[in-house]
């Protein structure tokens, strides 16, 4: 039985896919008399199966060598597109994490979206999401990973566009797709080039190839940068980061998945690409630079957000920036641990935020306050999630960051400074949000706030427990340092940075209810940060307007130059004018036949003498 499950571990992504497909009749509105819930239940069942399946496989292969499966998909000419699957504790563990979080998010959806009649469509998309993600976890082929990343782009578009009639969603969904598409396109260029150079696109072959590859520095750099672009788009890294902010227009359960797992999916591909990236020092440096800029910038931006979801989502970009730095320094292990601890803590924070939104009908932090004593599960989830994000207590991220500091002692010291800064700013931001939402006095919108129902509370509490257990899991996986080996200085630095953030966060003056700072300089800084350094406007006047200009210019040329020339020649006007009336009379047919006959005769006449001449000459 276990062997059977193991041999069929490639089947894990298909559960979600089947769920999504079976759900179609409800999602498309073919079944109208009864409601969409059977679709939701079926997807839940499929996710449970996927979770159990991957869990059993994980238990089995715990101490075994990684196995790989190879499925040839398309073999033609000199191209061999095969889907390699890598079944190792890491990949199956990732699948367990994905299906598990997906399961929790789906139960959560039952509560959060209970009054949404398009529930089936949402569950179909979640199933699709889960399928693509778990496929990504198991994939050992760059081609397959690329395809799945594209599917994630598509499902992000559809999930963000879920409330399609809402005006901001219309632009948000489009921007999310296009931003990611830019990254995907560059990645595709890299994939095509790599396929040509390396022959195979399976990661194991690529690694082998990278050992011996002899590329010119320029080519290696271009290749590396192209390969970085895809994950950078997925992980919302500068300069492809704006979509994540906009994507918060989508329903919250999707945000839970997106901020924890989807961004991690991009980073996971980056992790797998590490050997190829190491061909180019420039690419590695680019990773560090992108990561640093995003980590610091996004942390600052998150502090100025007044929207609860956005305050959290910018910190996602920041943490992915840290992952980028780790990969840039070729510390893949650190990157994976950080991804793992971040995913769980961030999912929990988003669940908490979702239940606040569902209860208070607002996302505006300045309109909230005083929720703690009414909403125990939500408050606990937030506190545990926040401590899981920063390094005050020895929860997940503490150990990830400790490992980071220890491994980076050899790297330039400013990188440790970046980590401490990001950590401190995150701590500040989470403290600020906590004070605004849960502390203080209640306001009109938070005056009556009964705790959410069990569909939302249960996953929240479960994930709270999991977050608390993360250190134990890390210990199980032997990822924790022994007591003696702990670098005391690193611990002191980390705790100090979190504590500083906490202290500043609890002392700063918080504006309530749409008041603005009085001092102009502060106002400028606040606006600069809350509008993401106005980068969207920068794009507006550069790339977007360039494409728009180009397209208008092209259309103008097409209309007035290319087509104009044709019309000028006059042939069209002679025939197309008022002289021809295509009415019900049979005249038109004869007309055409005449023209056609004329044309053929002309052709023959033109070419006949030529041929005749030649024929005669020979």
């Amino acid at each position, binding site marked *: 039985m276990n062997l059977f499950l193991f041999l069929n571990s490639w089947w894990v992504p298909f559960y979600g896919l089947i769920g999504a497909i079976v759900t179609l009749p409800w999602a498309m509105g073919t079944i109208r008399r009864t409601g969409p819930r059977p679709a939701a239940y079926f997807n839940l069942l499929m996710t449970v199966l996927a979770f159990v399946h991957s869990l059993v496989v994980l238990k089995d292969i715990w101490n075994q060598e990684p196995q790989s499966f190879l499925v040839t998909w*398309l073999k033609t000419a000199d191209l061999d597109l095969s889907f390699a699957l890598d079944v190792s504790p890491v990949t199956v563990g990732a699948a367990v994490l994905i299906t598990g979080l997906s399961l929790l998010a789906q139960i959560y959806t039952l509560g959060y979206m209970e009054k949404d009649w398009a529930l089936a469509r949402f569950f179909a998309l979640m199933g699709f999401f889960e399928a693509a993600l778990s496929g990504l976890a198991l994939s050992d082929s760059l081609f397959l990973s690329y395809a799945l990343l594209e599917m994630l*782009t598509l499902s992000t578009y559809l999930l963000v566009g879920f409330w399609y009639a809402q005006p901001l969603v219309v*632009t948000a*969904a489009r921007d999310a797709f296009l931003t990611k598409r830019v990254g995907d396109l560059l990645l595709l260029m890299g994939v095509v080039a790599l396929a040509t150079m390396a022959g195979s696109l399976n990661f194991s072959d690529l690694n082998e190839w990278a050992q011996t590859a002899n590329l010119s520095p320029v080519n290696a750099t271009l290749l590396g940068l192209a390969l970085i672009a895809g994950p950078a788009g997925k992980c919302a890294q500068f300069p492809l980061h704006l979509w994540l902010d906009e994507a918060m227009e989508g329903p919250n359960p999707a945000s839970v998945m997106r901020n924890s797992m989807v961004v991690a999916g991009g980073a996971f591909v980056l992790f797998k690409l590490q050997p190829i990236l190491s061909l180019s020092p420039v690419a590695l440096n680019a990773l560090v630079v992108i990561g640093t800029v995003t980590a610091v910038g996004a942390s600052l931006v998150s502090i100025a957000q007044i929207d609860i979801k956005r305050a959290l989502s910018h910190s996602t970009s920041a943490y992915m920036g840290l992952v980028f730095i780790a990969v840039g320094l070729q510390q893949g292990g650190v990157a994976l641990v950080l991804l793992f601890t971040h995913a769980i803590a961030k999912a929990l924070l988003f669940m908490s935020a979702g239940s606040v939104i569902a209860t208070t009908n607002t996302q505006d932090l300045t309109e909230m306050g005083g929720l703690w004593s009414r909403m125990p599960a939500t408050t606990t989830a937030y506190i545990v999630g926040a401590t899981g994000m920063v390094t005050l207590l020895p929860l997940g991220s503490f150990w990830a960051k400790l490992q980071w500091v220890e491994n980076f002692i050899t790297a330039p010291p400013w990188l440790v400074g970046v980590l401490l800064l990001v950590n401190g700013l995150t701590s500040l931001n989470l403290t600020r949000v906590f004070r605004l939402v849960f502390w203080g006095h209640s306001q009109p919108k938070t005056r009556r706030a009964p705790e959410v129902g069990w569909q939302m509370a249960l996953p929240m509490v479960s994930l709270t427990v999991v977050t608390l257990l993360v250190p134990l899991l890390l210990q199980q996986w032997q990822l924790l340092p022994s007591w003696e080996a702990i670098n005391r200085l690193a611990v002191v630095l980390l705790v100090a940075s979190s504590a500083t953030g906490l202290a500043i966060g609890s002392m700063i003056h918080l504006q309530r209810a749409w008041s603005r700072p009085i001092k102009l300089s502060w106002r400028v800084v606040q606006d600069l940060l809350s509008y993401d350094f106005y980068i969207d406007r920068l794009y507006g006047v550069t790339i977007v307007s360039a494409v728009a200009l180009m397209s208008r210019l092209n*259309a103008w040329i097409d209309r007035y130059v290319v087509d104009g020339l044709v019309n000028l020649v006059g042939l069209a006007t002679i025939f197309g004018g008022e002289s021809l009336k295509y009415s019900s009379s049979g005249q038109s047919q004869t007309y055409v036949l005449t*023209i*056609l006959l004329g*044309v053929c005769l002309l*052709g023959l006449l033109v070419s006949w003498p030529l041929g005749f001449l030649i024929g005669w000459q020979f």
Partner: protein
Amino acid sequence: MLSALIWMPMLGAALIGFWPKGMNPNRSRLIALVAAGAACLWTLVIVSQFNPSHVGQQFSEFIPWIETLGLNYHLGVDGLSLPLLVLNGLLTCIAIYSSDVAIQRFRLYYALVLVLSAGVAGAFLAQDLLLFFLFYELELIPLYLLIAIWGGHRRGYAATKFLIYTAISGILILASFLGIVWLSSNTSFAYDPSRTQTLPLATQALLLLMLLIGFGIKMPLVPLHTWLPDAHVEASTPVSVLLAGVLLKLGTYGLLRFGMGLFPDAWNLLGPWLATWAVVSVLYGSFTAIAQKDMKKMVAFSSIGHMGYVLLAAAAATPLSTLATVLQMVSHGLISALMFLLVGVVYKKTGSRDLDVLSGLLNPERGLPLIGSLMVLGVMASAGTPGMIGFISEFLVFRGSFPVFPVQTLLSMLGTALTAVYFLNLMNRVFFGRLSEQVINLPRVQWSDRYPAIVLAVLIVLFGIQPNWLVHWSEPTTTAMNASFPVLTLRTHNFKFVTSQEGQELFSHAFKRTLALPEIPSPMSHTP
């Protein structure tokens, strides 16, 4: 066996056209459907009998016809034409099915559609240059009439423009064919690649250039394209489906079969230029599509962009890229047909195709939700999202062309991002948002409006997941087509970029050498 593909629709057309009395719209529609369906099924029979591993023509039919002209009725099918024949059969059925039931002058209409289909099938089957030309011209008349009689407001202009362009295309192709036959001192128009090899390279290049322009009009390539958006905008939906889905493929098919097939050396010579031309076409079509407000025009310009990929892959002429041309042709045929069908339904129900007028059509109660969902699929397929045929065909195009023309390939890859730009713009403006007041009370969408689109959508996904079913039929043929090509690519480890500049040098060098060599004289100077 193959003749049936031509004569079944012809018979149907004759039945509808010359039925003595009592022909009503329903009966003629039924006859047309039966004739087209029979032809389509017959194509499938041929597919089942087709031996994919056999290179070269199968099921050949040869009947001497006019010996003085060197014209023979010679048909055959191979891996290049087979998928296109199936596409033709399928899309003809779909076009007839999705025609308006209450169409005016129904007898002429259905007869013309069938003649069109027969002409296209004949062109794909013809193994004789002149026969191909005859069919190529034959298809022109019904299409002209279909646009000119059942078109929109400016149908006269559009139809005439189409006619003139295609007539020029025909003249050039005929001239080139005649040149081939007579310059190689032959009297037969039989398709025979071997004899063009004896011609001087410059002559080959000249003849190829004529073919390029001739078929380039049909594809169409920028700047020979302006007939296409006008024709699409004025044509009714079924005609647009046929035009985009099948007729444009005559251009690419002709290029591959006659351009690449008859002039491999000249083709190699012109390769870099063709690839650059393809880039121009792709980017030009895509950028122009972004600026369009008319959905149909947007899809038409998108067609221009996507047909550019075929030229890119053909120019590279590697075994993989040649295979990719077939896939891309089928993919474009299915996807553009789907898009035109969907735009057609929107137009039929709302009376508008204007991006500024329409909005919120995803509304589940009063909008067109299923059409909108299928549109998402079509848009995504067109933008090359994996899981659909657009992705694998474009991937093969890029992967196949990259080793030969890396710069051109990378540039034309921008087209996929631009496709996403304009089609998402279409999607979000027309289908997202609140239903606009102008279209608040649309007529019902019948299931018969949806079936054709659903069939196409299923095929798009099916071939996207399992492209082997398509590759399987064509690969031996396309590989064989490349056998006569020198290996341009240095594969695997010691990969070398051939930049366009190098390509150009190669070209000009070869050209100069050809012209300079005195021992290859021009044919005129020869004396018997």
